[in-house]
């Protein structure tokens, strides 16, 4: 039987490793496959000349462990990153839509008389807050995903909670239209949304993620809080309605502005990348 030379051993070893690279995602393999193969070959040569065939065998043990864990890691990352980036890219648009629906809903506050129930065109306008909070909730979650690293774990989870609160509000808006006694769901969602927004607003002032809108989340949070608590109720119905309108309008405009800023950042980043 013909004895294999060191060069042939290493060449065979590298061929086997190259075949195993097919386990990695295609994009990753295209970017790093050749470099990984070269690195594998370099270390194989080094191990062979220092420790002989045992050295190459031990290097294979390290490589197989490494391959198992990093293939899983890269495959999971591809799956998650794709869904995450698609969603994060929609963040600005979601917030713009949420802001526009919020602005539309603001006009419901001009309903004359009692506001415990909305009627006619005002009911229709008020119902715009349902898609409004739906988009704002998704937008908050999108912001958390989009700015995950600078926000850190705390900022991210506060935004997620705020988003969940807004989603509960949207759901509460629908179910309370069917059964008024379920209005508490809307209120509970509102409390969660506002509390989380206040926390995020404070965090954002201290550690800005959107530098051009440093204090806006705090303003927004305070506005929503005032709206929910009804702090600004006066004896004059006209004043009350106008204040409520302004608060709703302010909320809508702030989300619209944040959404536009996120979209502008995304456009700038795309231009830089191009």
């Amino acid at each position, binding site marked *: 039987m013909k004895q294999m030379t060191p060069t042939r051993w290493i060449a065979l070893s590298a061929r086997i*490793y190259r075949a195993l690279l097919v386990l*990695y995602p295609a994009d*990753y393999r295209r*970017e*790093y496959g*050749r*470099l*990984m*193969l*070269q*690195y*594998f070959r*370099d*270390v194989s040569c080094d191990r062979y000349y220092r420790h002989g065939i045992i050295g190459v065998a031990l290097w294979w043990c*390290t*490589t197989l*462990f*490494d*391959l198992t*864990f*990093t*293939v899983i*890691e*890269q495959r999971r990352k591809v799956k998650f990153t794709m869904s995450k980036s698609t969603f994060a890219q929609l963040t600005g648009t979601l917030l713009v839509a949420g802001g526009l629906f919020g602005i539309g809903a603001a006009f419901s506050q001009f309903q004359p008389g009692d506001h415990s129930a909305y009627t006619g065109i005002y009911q229709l306008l008020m119902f715009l807050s349902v898609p409004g909070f739906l988009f704002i909730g998704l937008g908050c979650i999108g912001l958390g995903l*989009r*700015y995950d*690293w*600078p926000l*850190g774990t705390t900022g991210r989870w506060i935004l997620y909670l705020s988003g969940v609160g807004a989603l509960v509000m949207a759901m509460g808006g629908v179910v309370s239209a069917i059964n008024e006694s379920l209005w508490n769901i809307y209120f509970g969602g509102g409390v969660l949304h506002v509390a989380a927004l206040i926390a995020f607003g404070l965090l954002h002032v201290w550690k*800005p*993620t*959107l*530098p*051009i809108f440093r204090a806006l989340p705090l303003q927004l949070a305070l506005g929503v809080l005032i709206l929910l608590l009804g702090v600004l109720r006066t004896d004059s119905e006209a004043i009350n309605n106008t204040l409520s309108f302004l608060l709703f309008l302010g909320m809508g405009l702030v989300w619209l502005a944040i959404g536009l800023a996120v979209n502008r*950042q*995304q456009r*700038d*980043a795309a231009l*830089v990348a191009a």
Partner: protein
Amino acid sequence: MSNVVLRPDDMLPLTPAVFHILLALADGEKHGYSIMQEVSRITNETIKMGPGTLYGTLKRMLEAHLIEETEERPDPTMDDERRRYYRLTAFGERVAQAEAGRLALLLNVAHSKKLVGGATA
């Protein structure tokens, strides 16, 4: 996201693989294999990174702007053109300094509790 403010402290603590690579690149640009040789040298050959770990970590570090690829070659006549060289960015250097400072503080505590330089009673 050019407007996002990144601070070195936001990146801490670093994983051992990231910190070892930052240390290996601290004295100049290197390609994958020479990074591994330097990591082996500074860790008395206790750290052995497989190809997936090394390039997976380099990829993450590139995305985090801790390192960058360089077109320059230390000595083009002595080297394979297909190799890819990496060097620290200014941000990567600040992150490495911040992590080294963090570890130095911990080491001081370990010294004060007599956990360094011999077995405890």
